[in-house]
């Protein structure tokens, strides 16, 4: 069973999602070939080559791939897929963008957002914002998958795979990349963090929302936000958790002042443990949480942050 994995990377670093994708496909057969496409990505390729479960790392280093454009990546992949049964990417923004475009070129129906793999051709994926799980049977000769990285454990150990450059055909992309509008923060990656602290609209201002960031910093956690908090400008859009934001599956999710709209719940169902802090004992998320504290977040959060800081220092 031959597998090609498209590596996820950002700012010269291999994304933790790739380790989880490799963990997911490990059950499908042989070690995977990993494609790293981008510009000046030698470091990323080396990081991928050190992972277990990797047979070979192919590197496509060209300015045309710098912005990870779907047109360029799908074009590149379509020339490399011969002989592979599985072509796999994480279901991040790049994988979601590229894989279906590639699939159409290959006349393949992909399976997106895979959360479980049962053998060579049976996959689980969530539908209706995670309120139902479909088991699909995919017997197509080529199987294109995007993997919800947070649903799988990262592959662990060491590897030493060879790194080979890919010979590139003439690349033409009509799309002109203008700018990256990055949120400047150095919080851990939401999709793969072990702990996430999330805040809702109840914080009432961007200034107050910093309380969430402070608690997260104490715990070494990623910061999440509801759509309402993002729309109100309290948090940047890449912190949004939910059906239309990021899907998280941390060991611990601490949800503060979040009532639990359906679309938010869709993003947190994979959390192993949920702790809710809310004034409203009837809030859906309070009912769903493993542990809840009913109280005013403006009193609870500073006290909790100070006490945890003490305890974790000890």
């Amino acid at each position, binding site marked *: 069973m031959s597998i090609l994995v498209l590596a996820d990377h950002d*700012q010269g670093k291999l994304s*933790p999602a790739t380790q989880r994708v490799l963990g997911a496909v490990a059950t499908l057969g042989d070690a995977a070939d990993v494609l790293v496409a981008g510009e000046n990505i030698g470091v990323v390729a080396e990081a991928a080559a050190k992972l277990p479960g990797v047979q070979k790392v192919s590197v496509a280093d060209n300015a045309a791939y710098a*912005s990870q*454009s*779907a047109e360029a990546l*799908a074009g590149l992949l379509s020339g490399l897929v011969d002989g592979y049964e599985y072509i796999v990417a994480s279901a991040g*923004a*790049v994988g*979601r*963008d590229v*894989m*279906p*475009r590639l*699939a*159409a*070129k290959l*006349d*393949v129906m992909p399976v*997106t957002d895979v959360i479980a793999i049962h053998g060579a051709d*049976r996959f689980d994926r*969530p*539908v*209706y*914002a995670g*309120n*139902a*799980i*479909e*088991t*699909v*049977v*995919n017997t197509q000769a080529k199987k294109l998958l995007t993997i919800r990285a947070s649903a799988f454990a990262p592959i662990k150990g060491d590897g030493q795979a060879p790194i080979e450059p890919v010979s590139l055909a003439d690349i033409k992309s009509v799309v*002109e990349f*203008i700018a*990256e*509008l990055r949120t400047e923060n150095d919080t851990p990656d939401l999709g793969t963090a072990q*702990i996430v602290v999330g805040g809702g609209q109840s914080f009432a201002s961007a200034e107050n929302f910093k309380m969430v960031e402070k608690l997260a910093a104490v715990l070494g956690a990623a910061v999440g936000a509801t759509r309402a908090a993002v*729309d109100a400008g309290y948090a*940047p*859009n*890449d912190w949004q958790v939910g059906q*239309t934001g990021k899907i998280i599956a941390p*060991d*611990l999710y601490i949800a503060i002042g979040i009532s639990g709209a*359906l*679309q938010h719940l869709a993003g947190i*169902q994979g959390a192993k443990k*949920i*702790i809710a*802090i809310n004034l409203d004992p009837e809030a859906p998320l*309070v009912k*769903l949480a*493993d*542990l809840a*504290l009913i109280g005013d977040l403006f009193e*609870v959060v500073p*006290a*909790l942050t100070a006490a*945890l800081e003490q305890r*974790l220092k000890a």
Partner: protein
Amino acid sequence: MKILVAVKRVVDHNVRIRVKPDGSGVETANVRMSMNPFCKNAVEAAVQLAEQGHATEIVAVSIGPKAASDVLLTAMAMGVNRSILIETDARVEPLAVAKLLQAVVDEEKPDLVLLGKQAVDDDSNQTGQMLAGLLDWPQATFASAIEVEDGAVKVTREVDYGRAESRLPLPAIITADLRLNTPRNTALPMVMKARQKPLAVRPVAEFGVDITPRLQIEKTTPPAERSGGKTVGSVDDLVTAIGDDVANMEAL
């Protein structure tokens, strides 16, 4: 320019869905249906482009049963000029949907196709990308802002690190994210007026596309139940609980 906008009729996003006990799918009989929210953002974007003087005609297309003409009516009430319903009662996968849309693009020759980034029933998030792949047109997925320039569109996309801006020459495909706009409400008089607009109902067979599904849905099950509901009395209890959790976490 001419805009084609694709819309899907789905279970209304406010309905708490029920998985059928026999695992054969989700209960859709006697459940409120409406236009997929992301499609609504796409329609609103098209109508705004027309209001700004960039679009001369907007055509909406839907694929589904006869009842899907409802969502086309909604689209026309919002400001779409005319509609096409490709009628079928079969389950149509995104790949087949993209092929049917490609056939409509070949007929209508739009300069821009707008779609929702995903449908809230199957959450696939792929039809727009597939249509772009079939047509070999540039694509801008997860759009939160669109500006029309001379023969091109400047699009802001929601990506993992924040936002990204790119410029696409026309013709192009754009898929809408929720932050693109706030779709207008359609009052009854607008719906009545929309009934006068042309709606062509055409059988799927007319398009010569093989819509046989490539994937079999073996079963549909509810997600694992969470057993929540325990409350603690004080911040100290919470400190203990979180502190213990952190101490027991396996280092990655």
